[in-house]
């Protein structure tokens, strides 16, 4: 049997008793004002006067998802099928801070192209799979804040600034340099493999065939 989910504090969300029916299903956080200001200062504002960068908490960031939904129980068994448009968390990592960047509406093509690309026939209905056309542009995912080990990392103004500036610097690099960097990165991985492999094989057959050094007086 699957164990009961736990909230971040570690308390178990067990089936509520009649006396206590508080059940934490999602944890929401508003972006600290200082972080929002730092990001805006680092990345500037878009044509609508909104910041180019923003930080959002995973559970707070919802987006339209339309089409045929298959609702399943905890064991993965199909419960029902529904054709609808839902607001759901946009990113899979719901318990993390995410940095987003605003992209202009033209990134998504014309409203006509958007309709052609994103509308799906489901249950005899034409459902907008990503919701309406983003006429004011849309914020897209840049970066999920977590430690190198994949654990939670708290959002601070300094971190937010660093990330925004790194992305801005990335944007200024010409395509050829980016392309070269990608291949160089793969080349470095190849060389790292080679070094690792030779080291591994040297360990198998060490110098002097494991014969001890003999001190000659």
């Amino acid at each position, binding site marked *: 049997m699957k164990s009961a989910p736990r909230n971040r504090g570690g308390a178990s969300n067990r089936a509520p008793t009649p006396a206590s029916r508080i059940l934490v299903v999602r944890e929401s956080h508003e972006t600290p004002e200082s972080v929002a200001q730092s990001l805006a200062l680092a990345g500037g504002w878009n044509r609508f006067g909104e910041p180019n960068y923003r930080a959002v908490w995973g559970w707070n960031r919802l987006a339209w998802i339309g089409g045929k939904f298959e609702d399943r129980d905890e064991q*993965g068994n199909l419960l029902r099928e529904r054709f609808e448009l839902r607001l759901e968390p946009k990113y899979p990592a719901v318990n993390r801070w995410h940095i987003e960047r605003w992209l202009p509406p033209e990134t998504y093509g014309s409203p006509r192209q958007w309709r052609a*690309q994103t509308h799906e026939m489901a249950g005899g209905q034409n459902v907008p799979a990503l919701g309406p056309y983003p006429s004011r542009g849309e914020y897209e995912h840049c970066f999920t804040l977590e430690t190198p080990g994949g654990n939670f990392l708290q959002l601070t103004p300094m971190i937010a600034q660093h990330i925004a500036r*790194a992305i801005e610097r990335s944007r200024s*690099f010409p395509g050829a340099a980016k392309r070269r960097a990608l291949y160089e990165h793969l080349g470095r991985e190849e060389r790292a493999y080679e070094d690792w492999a030779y080291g591994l094989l040297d360990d198998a057959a060490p110098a002097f065939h494991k014969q001890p050094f003999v001190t000659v007086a």
Partner: protein
Amino acid sequence: MPAQANANVVALQLEKVRDKVPLLYERDDILLTMIQQRGDVEKVSSRNMRLPLQVNPGGKAGSYNADGGDLGRGSGTSYDVAQVSPIFFRFAIEITKLVEYATNGRERAVENAAKREVANGMRQFRSFLDKLMQTAGNGVLGTISSFASTTWTMATPPGAALVYVGQTVQVYDSTLTTNRGTANVVAADPISSTQTITVDANPGGLTAGDVIVHDGLSGAQPVSLFGIKYHQNNATTGTWLNLNRATYPVQLATPRVNAGNAALTPANVRLAINKVRKALGINHLSKLIAYMAVEQEHAWENLGITVSQIIKEGGGSSGNDLDLLFTGRKTMSGVPIKSSVNADQTRVDFLDLSHWGRAVLKDIDFYEVNGNTVFPIYGASGGLAASYIFYFDTAFQVWDDSPRSGAFIDSLARPSGY
């Protein structure tokens, strides 16, 4: 007592490194070895491995009239069985007599030569198998769109990405019925836009539109490693792991987004990810990886919403300050990116590798006959040739027990410069 032969010395060196061979092979840095071996099913006999699949749910839900109404009958869960049978793969390495002469036959020098060939050979073998992982299970490594003399221009995808210099390939007609013969690759250019291969000699009857497959396959409709395009496929005809796709057109089809030869956009990515979420439950995405060619990673960088490799490598003015923040992985809408030079240049695959596995009949090792792992080569006369040969071999097949747990975007444009 017979004199010591160089083959004996080489065999001795190979034995010294023998226990390191699996480590060299199972390194977790390419798609093939990222696919976890699942303990309960990994070891198989030469018979087919059976994968029971729950293809349809059971039970009848509905309302009823409690005032004496009929509650109706029930139903049970439907199961079917997918099957995989391992394929044998080998990688042959020859050391010529010149090694002995060049090193004056000193044991230490022979040891170094053997170690070098083991390391290089294993890297090449893993690379070969990883290239097969990009295919549709028929061993097709590319399509010849045109040819001039012995230079073949390859259709992209996959262009010339799935062959390597020195490889022996076979040419089949486009229907994979007629084997026209073999050729040896003497040059390959998978990077530039030309995507050409040069071979030593054309097989007879070579025709534009022919396909190339790897060495060792035979007969019509050959079967090789079941790669990404075999499992991540939305076809409703044909077979999948011995099941008829037409019988389960929904259950076996991987969600697809057709980019229509346009550049990658965030909308494509969200559509693909959302298709998985709608099918499996809205929050069941934690294990996905976005697998793509370097071209599409570049296309994603071109959208200007990610920190590029240049900055990650510390190439920026203060890039090093940021290193501590980075997990080392770029993401695509929150899904970690894994890029490869072998991947299809016009495609992005979202893979849930927890559903993938390998049915292994024989682990990687030296090919052995009566305790011997190094064998002499014989010349055309029947006498000895001045070479020795040894092999790596393994037998396995790749399976995916839930094709709907992934998604793919195809027909993507390649960024300019590729």
